[in-house]
């Protein structure tokens, strides 16, 4: 479904991604892990065309998206839903207006039908009845759930999650994980999750890719990555800052 080949991205003199190859099958859930600032979010933004690579190709359903202009990309993006790290809710709108945003140019849907779909999406993220609230009135976890409702309301084929559990307490993080799994199974979507929450990675991913030193250092089924004895993989999974420390 998504095929990335030789993706390279630089910001000025700084190389962020170098020769990334990644293949994501329809319906699978891939988790991208890596240290802060290693380029996970940059990779995710390339998959939906928010950033253009310096080299390499990205194919979505066989369509090469790196040569498309912004208008052509808009069509491709209809297949995607994205949950941003900060949720990125439109703060001038209510929750209902945020969730219904994707329908604003749809003349085939009546206001009642849109309201029903919004209520259904909010129900799916366990936030029924908050349509009239403003984003500023919501907690961090609620904002992420509303962001997720906005991303799933139009039934996309691919969902991208940028740090879905960052900044949330363990209980809310757990509920977000449950939600990702439920949406993955319920809507049968392809999911790409960027995270450095190892518990989350273990639970939501069919496969895990570790981004290290601008490249995909290791990739495989979740159990095999978590059982890996490679020192770089182990160090990240176990969260060790100094591998020479006696406790390591």
């Amino acid at each position: 479904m998504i095929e990335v080949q030789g993706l390279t991205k630089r910001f000025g003199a700084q190389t962020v991604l170098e020769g990334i190859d990644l293949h994501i099958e329809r319906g699978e859930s891939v988790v991208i892990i890596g240290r802060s600032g290693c380029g996970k979010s940059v990779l995710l933004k390339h998959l939906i065309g928010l950033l253009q690579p310096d080299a390499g190709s990205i194919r979505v359903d066989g369509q090469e998206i790196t040569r498309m202009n912004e208008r052509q990309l808009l069509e491709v993006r209809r297949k995607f839903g994205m949950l941003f790290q900060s949720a990125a809710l439109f703060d001038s709108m209510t929750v209902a207006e945020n969730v219904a945003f994707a329908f604003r140019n749809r003349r085939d849907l009546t206001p009642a039908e849109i309201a029903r779909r919004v209520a259904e999406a909010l129900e799916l993220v366990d936030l029924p009845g908050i349509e009239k609230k403003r984003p500023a009135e919501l907690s961090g976890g609620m904002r992420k759930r509303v962001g997720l409702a906005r991303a799933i309301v139009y039934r996309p084929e691919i969902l991208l999650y940028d740090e879905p559990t960052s900044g949330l307490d363990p209980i809310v993080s757990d509920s977000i994980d449950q939600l990702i799994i439920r949406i993955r199974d319920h809507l049968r979507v392809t999911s790409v999750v960027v995270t450095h929450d190892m518990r989350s990675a273990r639970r939501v991913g069919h496969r895990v890719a570790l981004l290290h030193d601008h490249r995909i250092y290791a990739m495989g089924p979740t159990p095999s990555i978590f059982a890996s004895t490679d020192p770089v993989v182990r160090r990240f999974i176990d969260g060790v800052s100094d591998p020479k420390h006696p406790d390591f």
Partner: protein
Amino acid sequence: MGLHCAWWSDWLCGLGRMALLARDAFASLLRRGAHPRDVLVQVHFMGVKSQSVVLITGAFTGMVLAAQTFFQFHKVKMDTATLAVVSVSMCSELGPVLTGLMVAGRVGAAIAAELGTMRVTEQIDALRTLATHPVDYLVVPRLLAAHIALPLLTAEAITVGIGAGYLVGVGLLGIDAAYAWHNMLRYTDLVDVTMGMIKAVIYGGIVALVGCYKGLNCRLGAEGVGRATTEAVVAASISILVSNFFLTLGLTPLLTGLGL
């Protein structure tokens, strides 16, 4: 020297990018990408909510212009030409320029701050993921609204300015009402009014385009938003003042030649 080159190159690049933004906005307009409701919301924000600023500016400018002109003209016994000066100045220069500057301060700053904050908080990226072009949703409604609101606000400022000038001249300074009115109508041409309105349309475009450009291209962080807001006001104000000279120079022979 190197620093100067970098500054010029940045400035020229900025102008080029702004021209590309204007082209995208024009293409979106032809494609009818903007929603009429979004345009109306912006007309309300720019037009209705700028009333007090524009009315006060127009009124006090008309009043001080009448008083100052009277004080000078009185020395050469030309009191009754005072309102003619007020009227011509308000219609062709002060009305559009001062309205443009006030709107640049209020609306241009608000546009840059709003779009800049949206960029910093990833809301513009969110728009793009929801298959919405930022130019369709953010730029075109503001540009259209500014083109509609600014001529209306300018006409209002001109009317109020002349009215206030009349009250000061006739009511306070004792100019003969009939002669003042007669001279005002005699020396104010359709060219002056048309030129004011054309300028207002152009200044509306400048305020909205500069505000949108600065907001969409602001640097990340609170400092970036603050800087974009300041730059939007400064750049729009300077563009209005500089273009005003060239517009006066170009439009006067053009409109006169058209027989207005």
